[in-house]
Structures are given as structure tokens and as C-alpha cells.
């Protein structure tokens, strides 16, 4: 009986392992074969924009409890995304890169924290407010749209980027040219996200054609498998995927919304909010912002307009 049990367990384990392997197969990080056929070299290895951030040892933010906490801890805890190529990304070797990551590093340096002392926490969208309110993270940089509702729970510095909802389609797609050509097409986005709710509210496609997954990577997988016809969210995110797999994917390029990305901060720390806003303004002016953009999202070929701060 003992041996028999072991054998049965081994079989089951082997089967479970096979399933795991299959499940992974569905998640497209930059895949090997598209690299071979793609025109541009694609890689999921992180490349920074080459901007150097020197920690400001004289940093001081008068009256900021968050800053005091950072200073005494000697490190900063930053909430980020990890699955958005060129935005907030972690490659297979564990290196982080992308536009949001470098903005986070820039702010950290201005707070007097060296790049090596940044502790990244991967916080899912649904938990952002909780993580900031609970003090789990010091600030959050990760495609975090500024909304009035969220301002009740957290504070925003910025916007440091203005994105717009767009569509990612297969390279050979010719029928989808903008938001009004989605009727009868399957459209995928993250569960409950603002983009998918806009598709529902504006009835851009039929309710049965709306597909929702936890991550955009899963949507992209379904797109490549032809189970959906378009992935919709902010163009910044989509261009990251298109740049990863230019042989199979393209972004339509007709944005139909405006999302202002802000840096999420503790609600009552106005001193820190003003400080971060000042630093962002400086980065807009001295070219740091543009350098970060050009070295990350800018690689998609689309130009960016420097955003205007909205202090409140």
C-alpha cells in the first residue's frame, strides 16, 4: 500500500507539473520565436534609460512624517507594478526597469535614498489605497490615475504622465481602426478596470464580447491565440507590449480618453506632496523627465508631451 500510494502521488504531481507548464505557456513575456522573426530586436531583459540618480544627502522635508520614517529607516519602500514592459517591469534576472520605476528612483534620490536602498513592493491595483493608508509603502508609482474619489484616501503628486485609452491588436488586423470599430469584436482588459468600464458604458461592443482577466499579460496571450480581437487600456501600457512583440502586435494609435498618472502618497502628508511636486517640476524643466521617457516608453517611437502639474 505504501509504495502504491507513493506511485499515485508521483503521477499526480507529474500531472500537476504538466499543468503548471501549460499554464505558463499561456503567459507571453517576450517570447523566443517572435524574437527570431521580428524586425526589431526584442528582449525582456531590463534596460534603463541611462539616467543617473544621485542621492541628495542634504535632503530634508520639513514636517513630513513619511520623510522622517524614511530617514530613520535609511530606506524607502515604493509600491510598483512588475508586469508592464517599459513601465513597471521586473525581468527574469530580477532587475526592475521602466518609466514608472525610474520616476520612483528619481524621487527616492531626491529624498536622499540611494537606488540600492529602494525596497520595491508589488502592489496590485485593487490594494493601492490600502497599502498607502496602512503605511505598507511610502509612495506608489505605477500607472496610478488621479481621481477625485481616490483623493479621499490618498494624496497625489503630479501628474507625471498623461496617458490615453487605446487599442492593441494583432499586426494583421485591418478592421479595427479606433473605438467605433469594435462592434462584434472581442475586447479584453483587466477585471473591473476603468478602460473596460468605458467600453461597457459607451457600448463600444456587445456585453458578451467583453473579456476580463486579472492581468494585461493574460489578455495579450488571448489576443495572440485569437480568442480576443483587441486589448484595451492606457496607450503607455499597450506600447510596452507592442514593443516587446512588434512582429505580431501593434497599437491602433487613436486614444479616446485621458488618464493622468500621479504618485500616490499618504493622504495627510502635504509637506511630502509639495516636495514631490517640486521635484517633478524640476525634472520637467531640466530635461530629466524627457531623458527618462526617451530611454523607456519613448523607444516605442511615440513622442510625449510634458504634463502640467496639478497642485491642490
Amino acid at each position, binding site marked *: 500500500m505504501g509504495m502504491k500510494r507513493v506511485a499515485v502521488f508521483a503521477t499526480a504531481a507529474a*500531472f500537476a507539473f504538466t*499543468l503548471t507548464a501549460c499554464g505558463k505557456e*499561456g503567459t507571453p513575456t517576450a517570447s523566443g520565436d517572435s524574437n527570431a522573426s521580428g524586425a526589431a530586436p526584442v528582449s525582456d531583459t531590463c534596460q534603463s534609460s541611462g539616467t543617473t540618480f544621485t542621492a541628495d544627502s542634504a535632503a530634508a522635508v520639513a514636517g513630513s512624517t513619511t520623510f522622517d520614517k524614511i530617514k530613520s529607516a535609511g530606506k524607502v519602500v515604493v509600491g510598483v507594478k512588475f508586469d508592464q514592459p517599459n513601465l513597471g517591469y521586473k525581468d527574469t534576472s530580477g532587475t526592475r526597469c521602466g518609466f514608472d520605476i525610474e520616476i520612483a528612483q528619481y524621487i527616492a534620490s531626491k529624498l536622499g535614498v540611494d537606488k540600492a536602498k529602494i525596497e520595491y513592493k508589488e502592489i496590485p491595483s485593487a490594494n493601492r*489605497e490600502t497599502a498607502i493608508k496602512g503605511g505598507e509603502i511610502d509612495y506608489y508609482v505605477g500607472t496610478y490615475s488621479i481621481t477625485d474619489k481616490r483623493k479621499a484616501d490618498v494624496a497625489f503628486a503630479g501628474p507625471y504622465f498623461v496617458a490615453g485609452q487605446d487599442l492593441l491588436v494583432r499586426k494583421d488586423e485591418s478592421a479595427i481602426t479606433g473605438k467605433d470599430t469594435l462592434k462584434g469584436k472581442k475586447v479584453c482588459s*483587466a477585471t473591473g478596470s476603468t478602460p473596460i468600464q468605458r467600453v461597457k458604458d459607451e457600448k463600444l461592443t456587445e456585453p458578451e464580447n467583453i473579456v476580463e482577466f486579472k492581468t494585461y499579460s493574460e489578455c495579450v496571450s488571448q489576443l495572440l491565440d485569437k480568442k480576443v480581437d483587441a486589448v484595451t487600456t492606457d496607450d503607455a501600457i499597450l506600447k510596452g507590449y507592442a514593443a516587446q512583440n512588434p512582429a505580431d502586435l501593434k497599437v491602433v494609435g487613436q486614444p479616446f480618453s485621458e488618464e493622468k498618472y500621479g504618485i500616490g502618497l499618504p493622504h495627510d502628508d502635504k509637506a511630502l506632496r509639495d516636495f514631490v511636486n517640486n521635484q517633478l517640476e524640476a525634472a520637467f524643466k531640466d530635461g530629466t523627465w524627457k531623458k527618462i521617457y526617451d530611454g523607456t516608453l519613448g523607444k516605442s517611437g511615440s513622442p510625449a508631451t510634458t504634463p502640467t502639474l496639478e497642485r491642490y
Partner: protein
Amino acid sequence: MSDFLHVLTDHWSLFGEGFGNTVKLFLIAAVGCLILGVLLGAFRVSPIPALRWFGATYVNIVRNTPLTLVFAFLVFAAPKLDVNFDYFTAAAVALTVYTSAFICEVVRSGVNTVAPGQAEAARALGLSFAQVLTEVVLPQALRAMVPPLMSVLIAMLKNTTVAAGFSVVEAGAIPSYMAEFGEPQFYVLLWIVIGFLVLIAPLVVLQRFLERKLAVAR
């Protein structure tokens, strides 16, 4: 307190759609897994070795596989093999396949509570295996099966929330929506808990009813 109520009243349609799909998914999967589970249970107690082997293998493989992987296999891997389900069907199939393994074991342990003399007597009367099972053994086994059966069904009802990750807008997807609306997560989650308690209540009542109905003086 009014905040707490507003979370529900402001998003009535979302809660309605979410829990509506949860109930739909549950009912379909419940019928599916009761049929498949009883069939597998019958396999496991059947006189044919190949069927017994099949039942045992199924239970040991499926019961040991995380439900999320069963979903992932149907949604991400199956299309690569040109097997295409729509997402709701995939969810119903995943729940049915997974829960059947547990139902099968409930049926088998129920059958084991029936004295062997019952089946022997039925066979001596010339009944076939199917008749022995459906006419004599299962009706008596049901008595012992009711409590664990309900536990499995309640677990399955809660397992439907896994489908939220695979493009089915059910109760498990509500928190993602509410986060996007900026509603307080604590209240949202409380309402979802309340929703599930309400859904489970009828199952508890059904269990009581069946236990009373099937009770015999021993």
C-alpha cells in the same frame, strides 16, 4: 454606517450581476458534478477493475491539482491545442471536473456505510449491478452522504470566485471593480461575505431537511 450601505446601494447592478453569475455557475456546476461524481463513485465500487482503476486515477489526479491550474489549463493551454471554450463554459467545466473528484469520494464512503449483506441479498435476487446500486445501496448510502455532500457543495460555491481571474464577472470580481470606483475595500469585502452567507443559507436548510427526511431509527 451610511458609507457601508452606500457601497451596496450605489452598485446594486454590479452586485446583482456578480452574484447572479455566481449562482448560475454554482447551479450548472452542481448538477454537472453530482452526475459526474456519482458516476465516478459507481466506477470505484464497480466489479470491473478497469473502471475502478479509472475512478481512482481520476480522483487522485484531479483532487491533488489546484483549482486555479484546472482553470488555467482550460483557458490558456487548451486554445493552444485548438480546444476552445467560451469563458463561462470553461469555468463551469473546471468546477465540475474538480468538484466531481470530491463528490466521488463522498459517494464511495457513503456506499461503504451500507452493510455488505444488503448488496449480497440484492444480487441474490438477481438484480444487476446498476440496479443494486440505484435501487438498494445508494438510497441507503444517501443518509451518510448528506453532511459531507453539502460541505463539498458549499466549498464549490465559494470556489466559484476563482472564475473571476478567468473572465467571468462573478462575486469574486466585485472587489476589482470597486477598487476602480474607489470604494472602501473593507466594506466591499464585508458585503461579499454577507452575500455568500445568504447564498449558503438555503444549502444549510436543505441539509437539515434531507437529514430529517432520511433519518431512520437504528
